[in-house]
């Protein structure tokens, strides 16, 4: 059995990681821990700066670069911590740090590793907020071809 744990800059609670590690240990499953450096956030920011702020491309690109670099550093630290925790419990683990769109990368990895279960984390938000700002977690849930479990972040 393969469990895919999908994390991103805004979805990385300790509680959710702990849950995924427990599930993998219980089922003697391989855990694939994916951390998506969410390019969407930086790209939408770049778009907003160009579109509403009318700043030039250099300012936007510099800022986008700063943000993505920071997210990648955080992602790397998070995956290292998970690798260490998995090693202590004897859980087979593979990690991937990828830059892209959260929903797209999760779905791509699901197909690539043949995941039997996806574990996602979701911040507590109102339905209105999800409607207004969209929900990548809902997109994954709708389009995944395997069961999806969502851990609500408190």
């Amino acid at each position, binding site marked *: 059995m393969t469990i895919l744990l999908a994390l991103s800059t805004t979805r990385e609670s300790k509680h959710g990681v702990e849950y995924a590690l427990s599930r993998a240990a219980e089922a003697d499953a391989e855990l694939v821990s994916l951390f998506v450096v969410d390019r969407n956030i930086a790209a939408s920011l770049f778009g907003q700066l160009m579109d*509403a702020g009318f700043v030039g491309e250099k300012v936007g690109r510099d800022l986008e670069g700063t943000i993505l670099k920071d997210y990648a550093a955080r992602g790397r630290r998070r995956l290292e911590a998970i690798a260490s925790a998995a*090693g202590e419990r004897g859980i087979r683990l593979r990690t991937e740090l990828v830059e892209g769109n959260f929903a797209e990368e999760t779905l791509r990895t699901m197909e690539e590793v043949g995941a039997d279960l996806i574990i996602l984390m979701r911040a507590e938000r109102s339905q209105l907020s999800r409607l207004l700002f969209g929900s990548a977690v809902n997109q994954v849930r709708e389009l995944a071809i395997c069961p999806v479990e969502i851990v609500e972040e408190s």
Partner: protein
Amino acid sequence: MDHLHEAEGVSPIRGSGGEWRSTAARLLMARRRNWRLFTLAVSFGVLILISTAPAPDGLTQQGQKALAIFAMCIILWVTHAFPLAVTSFLAIALLPIMKVMDPGEAFALFGNEAVFFIMGAFILAAALLKSGLSTRIALIFLSRFGGNPEHLLLGVLASSAFLAFWMPAHAVAALMFPIILQIARSLGLEPGRSSYGKALFFSLAWGSIIGGVATLLGGARNPLAIGILWQHHHLRLGFGEWMVAAVPITVVMLCCAYGVIRFFFRIDVADISRARDALRAAIDDLGKVSWPERWVGVVVGGTICCWIGLSHTVGLANIAVLGAVSLFVLNLVRWNDIEDYVNWGVILMYGGAIAVATALTETGAAQWLVVSLLTRYELTPFMLVVAISLVAKVLTEGISNAAAVAVLLPIGFSLGEVYGVHPVLMVYAVAIPSGLAFSLPMGTPPNAICYSSGYYGLREALKAGFVLNVASWIAFLLMVKLYWPLIGVRL
């Protein structure tokens, strides 16, 4: 699958843009395209529906078509189905096509004085960024506040606000973001958990936003508003007059912002010496002040002095253009440098917005809208200011500040005529609150930039932002009532 590997280490980052996409990912992209097409269809549907419906009493055919274009612009500006500038560009083409204005008249509005002022101001801001002078000022300003955590917080708020007096607030937030990130890292503040980290990024966002209303340079919506004022009433508003009216409000609002930040976010660090060291190191890295930096400082400082002292005699736009040209004469910038820092869509956006606003007034559409739909209630002039500033604040949380001004000001002028509010006061009552979006990341780029840091969540932004929105609105109304009469801006 060579990018996936065993647990002993973490694979290097890999981008997947342009690579194979799964069926599910393609479905996802198709959904986004469909949403955009749906929005475009709705906006054009509204355009056709309003322009072809039987004209109501009191509204000319030209006015009806102007309203149809206005409604289409509102939908496109709010949904961002097109870039803001493209929507304005489309509007300026539709005005002659639908025979609302002559082509010459419509396209001439791109040459509005406000548009050239904005161009000049953006070029000067680009020179500040390119020379590194703005970064040096920010670092030196901040380093003066590094005594303790409270002072540093105040320093972030004050330095962002001060820079936004002289440069677009969006550019200030983009410029300051890496500095604040560096401070947060040096203090080991954990994103999403550190209360002081949240406070620092809120200070940056709110400082730049508040500073942006103080002068005509902090946000292009301010010159847009005075451009629309000129088109409607042939009244001029000088750089100094704006500052006299707006700077005290800025100071009061900065106090409110500091109070809200301290109320919501406790200071959970005791020692900030590492942040002080990081700031010192950053200043050392910049080296000595270069000659281009000095000369850019002289040109920008001189231009600002001329704006304050000579805007009524020489003209805001003329001073801006002369200031921008001086940069080239002194060989301080090249045209390519400027293009790196300025998005020229700004001209299309503001030229188009002024054209739509002018069409609404000249065809009598704004007056009709106000008289037939909005004058059912007995309002005092102050109540009108209360209402319009509230609408501006709500609107600007969801759409761009400039779009909020473009939508509200033409209607505001007509309302002002009915209820007896002077057009200059109406400019302040719309433009200042339109610049003050404190909650939603989509409201204005400084919010979006700081939100992207991951240090605070949407819920915190909504909660603290709402409190500041209310506090700043009350502060604004108190200044309208108590301070503006002292400087001759009376209701």
